């Protein structure tokens, strides 16, 4: 009788520990550290400086007129759903550091009238390249065009991605950045914030 009772307890233990582990960790970024700059020219260490918060990150370049603004809009919609909460940080990280200087990112942020807990990050090309590799975001120049003022402008093919980091800098959700219905992201965040 005693051994049967112990078996029962073991089964209950296995059941509850296997069912309440939270979302699967896709990538652990807690051992990574990237020195980046925000739109105000302030130094930031990603993801270290955001530990203790959920971080919703979109990957963009500001010369992208269609897909990247959709990614940014989706982040803004999520932010609005939560009424700019203190425990969630929103980030747009550029994969085009050559053109997306802090000043350019500041202007870009200004287009969307964003709150303080929404930052845009850039860095030197090497750092951005390493950061993008670590989150499996790909980008490449697709074609260039010569403008009427004889300046060359290039466009990029790129991963279309939004991801969510938990408070320990672990990637727990990834989405198609421009096409994912915002309420999917909101519901996932609500689930983990409970």
């Amino acid at each position: 009788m005693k051994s049967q009772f112990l078996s029962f307890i073991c089964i209950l233990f296995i059941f509850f520990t296997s069912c309440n582990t939270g979302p699967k960790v896709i990538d652990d970024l807690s051992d990574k550290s990237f020195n980046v700059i925000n739109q105000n020219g302030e130094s930031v260490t990603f993801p270290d400086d955001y530990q203790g918060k959920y971080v919703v990150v979109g990957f963009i370049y500001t010369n992208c007129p269609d897909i990247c603004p959709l990614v940014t809009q989706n982040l803004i919609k999520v932010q609005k759903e939560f009424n700019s909460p203190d425990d969630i940080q929103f980030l747009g990280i550029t994969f085009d550091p050559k053109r997306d200087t802090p000043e350019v990112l500041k202007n870009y942020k200004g287009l969307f009238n964003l709150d303080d807990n929404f930052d845009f990050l850039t860095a030197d090309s090497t750092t951005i390249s390493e950061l993008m590799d670590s989150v499996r975001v790909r980008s490449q120049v697709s074609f260039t065009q010569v403008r009427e003022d004889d300046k060359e402008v290039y466009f990029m093919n790129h991963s279309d991605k939004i991801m969510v980091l938990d408070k320990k800098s672990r990637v727990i959700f990834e989405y198609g950045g421009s096409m994912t219905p915002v309420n999917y992201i909101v519901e996932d965040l609500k689930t983990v914030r409970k």
Partner: protein
Amino acid sequence: MKTSVVLLFTILLFSGCGDEPKKNPPQKSESDKIKNWARPGVQGQMSGAYFVYKNPLSSADTLISVYSPQAMMTQIHESYTTEDGLAGMREKKEIVVHSDETLVLKQGGLHVMLMNLKKDLSENDSVEVALEFTKAGTVKLKLPVKNNK
């Protein structure tokens, strides 16, 4: 007792554990409601514009160029997914619009590329766009600038 334990285990295993949270259907975004608009932009940078146009002619027509006085260079582009799964963009030199067909330029698809803006585009401004068709000639549109979030 043994049977009860096995039964309880089975019930627990198949109830609740591993259930995906039910997701609500996608919400209709602002972009679905606003059809003719342009995105805000910074001088010297890019912007995009969107519209719908129904071909009123009894035969097919072809959009061959687009012009806007607010940009140094204007083209029709199309967002698409490349073979290796990246988000890409390519120029569309011509678009055939059949009789009674509606040409739809919207986010994530066809769009007007406004390159090297001559001045900032802010909400409440408007963008003038001239579409050049082979048969209908020039069609002028005035698109309000919306912060479409």
